[in-house]
């Protein structure tokens, strides 16, 4: 139980091996320390994992968490998270999802659930308030993600995997409605546990709110801030994330030909404008979100979710494909099969280049994409070349060579932003705890060309800004917010006037911000105020009764980031020069031949990054852990490089 508001006060623990369930101990102190969401999950897993633990070990836990704001009607706050040891990276992964499951889990009276063990038969866990039922569902074997979920009425929400998850494709996702916890292979861990489906329904009313009147006022104010902002209120609602294709082309950050270039000649054919003008039926979006960035499009007479930017970019320019109709079709098929589109597309691009260089005769060629539907099915069912593609880019490079152009970080394929056109984003990719993820990376491109236009090639100032954004987004995600809301922190009057004196001054200040950011990042508690544009702490306080300030919110994010890093070290992340890396193509080859600026100066930026994080060789120092209040688990002392003596 809890004395805090906003939470339901209970965490469900489910053992699939013994088909038992109980309440997982989670106190208010734990809630205050972790907020919820991915930080809560990382904290739980830090105290469970051991050196050498693998994703497909029976005792690997799946941790599904909500935030205190999930189901509190705040704008864009319906998210939930799934964390586990990733089969793709071997490290901790967290995958965020905007589907309805999180809300229903809270409606059933649970803030989170921890799943352990392995069922003997394909299983469905049914959560109906406090009643937990295990069902054998052999008849669901091979069912697509949409097909399963359509069986349930709207009052029940699902977490489901498709054939890819059952066959342990290392980047299989988990689906809730049409939304995906896509990255890191959480679906493969479901599959390994013989868990096909979890459903939740309940009768609990909304969580009790600390100050309902204040929360309502803040929600209104924030919704208006999001609606009026040029990114969250105009671009995202008008064009969705797909609206980024053209600006990415302009800024040379549109991944093209397996990240061999940052521009694609036929980019207009796969752009957000093309999607809107020829295929859009209407906008859609997550519950309580004013941005409505989802594109509803038509495919074979069905009204389906359209491709997002990552999917458009990686299944388009990165494969040298300019047929948007094919991308719409593949996006639908990959969702139905239960596969992460980013990793699948990254693996295909890498295979195409391996074939081109004579390293793997797989028959895949850039620009020739007629057979890709078949290949995606082969991946899901692990047939033929699909069985190798299902292992991910890193393992493929270990088998066939080509490590220098195997586009991944920590084993996870990169998102669609080519970092040689935005080097701070490259630093983010490299240091991101879960691997090549643009959001866990801190989404530096928003400062390096997409939102603001600070010098995208300079390493100056990038470390501090990346850390700040990583921490803020970590905290926002933990509370249950969509991280897209963080764009509204950038004042509209700066974002809207790209050539104004003020905008240019801000961009210059950002470049030299390290001396200001360093003390703030070391001692965030000095920022004991709430900043009007940063709504997270205020909304969180009104909902829960906690007392967050901008500083303590950033500190909570830093806590989460360091807990994840510590967990990764326990799980085998090497400490030293190989901790945070990018493929050589991005660090050693110029994107624009002859222009030395167009490669990622990673080592230089990493030095500043580690100093500002309080890390040594990519690992938090004991002083940093102590400062953040992170307790080192006993098992970590065997492997933690600074834990001895």
């Amino acid at each position: 139980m809890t004395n805090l508001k906003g939470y339901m006060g209970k965490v469900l623990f489910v053992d699939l091996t013994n088909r038992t369930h109980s309440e997982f101990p989670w106190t208010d102190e734990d809630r205050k320390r972790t907020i919820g969401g991915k930080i809560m999950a990382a904290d739980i897993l830090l105290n469970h994992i051991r050196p050498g633990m693998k994703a497909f070990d029976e005792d690997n836990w799946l941790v599904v968490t909500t935030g205190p704001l999930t189901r509190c009607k705040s704008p864009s706050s319906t998210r939930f998270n799934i964390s586990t040891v990733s089969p793709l990276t071997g490290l901790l992964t967290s995958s965020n999802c905007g589907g309805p499951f999180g809300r229903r889990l809270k409606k059933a009276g649970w803030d989170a659930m921890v799943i352990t063990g392995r069922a003997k038969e394909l299983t469905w866990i049914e959560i109906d308030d406090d009643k937990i039922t295990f069902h054998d569902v052999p008849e669901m074997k091979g069912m697509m993600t949409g097909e399963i979920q359509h069986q349930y009425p709207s009052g029940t929400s699902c977490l489901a995997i498709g054939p890819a998850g059952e066959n342990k494709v290392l980047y299989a996702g988990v689906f809730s409605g049409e939304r995906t916890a896509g990255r890191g292979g959480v679906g493969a861990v479901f599959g390994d546990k013989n868990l096909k489906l979890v459903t939740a329904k309940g009768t609990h009313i909304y969580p009790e709110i600390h100050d309902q009147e204040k929360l309502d006022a803040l929600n209104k104010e924030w919704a208006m801030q999001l609606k009026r902002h040029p990114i969250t209120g105009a671009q995202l609602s008008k064009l969705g994330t797909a609206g980024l294709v053209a600006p990415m082309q302009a800024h040379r950050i549109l991944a093209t030909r397996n990240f061999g270039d940052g521009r694609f000649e036929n980019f207009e054919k796969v752009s957000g404008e093309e999607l809107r003008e020829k295929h859009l039926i209407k906008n859609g979006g997550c519950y309580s979100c004013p941005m409505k960035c989802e594109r509803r499009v038509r495919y074979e007479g069905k009204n389906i979710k359209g491709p997002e930017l990552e999917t458009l970019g990686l299944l388009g320019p990165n494969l040298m494909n300019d047929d948007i109709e094919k991308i719409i079709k593949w996006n639908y098929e990959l969702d139905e099969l239960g596969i992460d589109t980013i990793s699948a597309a990254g693996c295909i691009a890498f295979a195409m280049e391996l074939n081109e260089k004579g390293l793997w005769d797989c028959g895949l060629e850039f620009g020739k994409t007629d057979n890709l539907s078949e290949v995606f099915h082969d991946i899901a069912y692990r047939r033929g070349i699909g069985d190798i593609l299902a292992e991910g880019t890193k393992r493929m490079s270990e088998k066939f060579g080509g490590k220098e152009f195997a586009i991944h970080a920590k084993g996870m394929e990169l998102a669609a932003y080519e970092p040689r056109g935005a080097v701070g984003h490259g630093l983010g990719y490299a240091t991101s705890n879960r691997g090549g993820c643009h959001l866990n990376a801190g989404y530096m491109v928003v400062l390096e060309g997409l939102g603001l236009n600070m010098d995208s090639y300079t390493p100056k100032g990038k470390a501090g800004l990346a850390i700040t954004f990583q921490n803020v987004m970590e905290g926002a995600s933990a509370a249950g917010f969509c991280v897209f809301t963080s764009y509204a922190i950038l004042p509209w009057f700066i974002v809207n006037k790209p050539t104004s004196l003020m905008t240019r001054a801000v961009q210059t200040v950002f470049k030299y911000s390290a001396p200001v950011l360093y003390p703030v990042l070391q001692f965030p508690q000095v920022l004991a105020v709430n900043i009007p544009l940063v709504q997270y702490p205020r909304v969180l306080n009104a909902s829960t009764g906690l007392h967050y300030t901008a500083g303590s919110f950033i500190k909570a994010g830093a806590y989460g980031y360091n807990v994840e890093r510590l967990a990764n070290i326990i799980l085998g992340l090497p400490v030293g020069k190989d901790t945070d890396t990018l493929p050589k193509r991005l660090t050693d080859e110029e994107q624009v031949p002859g222009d030395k600026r167009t490669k990622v100066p990673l080592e230089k930026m990493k030095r500043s990054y580690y100093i500002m994080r309080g890390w040594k060789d990519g690992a938090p120092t004991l002083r940093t852990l102590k400062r953040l209040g992170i307790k080192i688990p006993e098992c970590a002392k065997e492997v933690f490089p600074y834990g001895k003596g």
Partner: protein
Amino acid sequence: MVKVKTFGVIRSTTGFGTLELEAKTVKEVFSVISKKMEEGYYEDLKKEEERMNDPKLKYRPERNAALKPHKELKFGEAVVYVNGDRCMRKGKKLNDGDEIWLLSPAAGG
């Protein structure tokens, strides 16, 4: 003749995706576009008013400034590229056959 392409929200506010026009400088491009926008502006306002007065539509006026009908497009409100390179000066001279991209100032996702 130069070729102008618009992307993002600017495509909605200017009302065209691609346009060929006579212009010797970037500044002239903006003047020509603004002139065209002004012609459609009053019509856009009228349409919006009609939608607002139609009880069946439940139409609410647009709150985001970028999505409201615009009478002109200013150089400082767009990100401008000429032949693939960023242009920060509106006085930049153009040659026959140049391609100009006008992008919305901000995007994210």
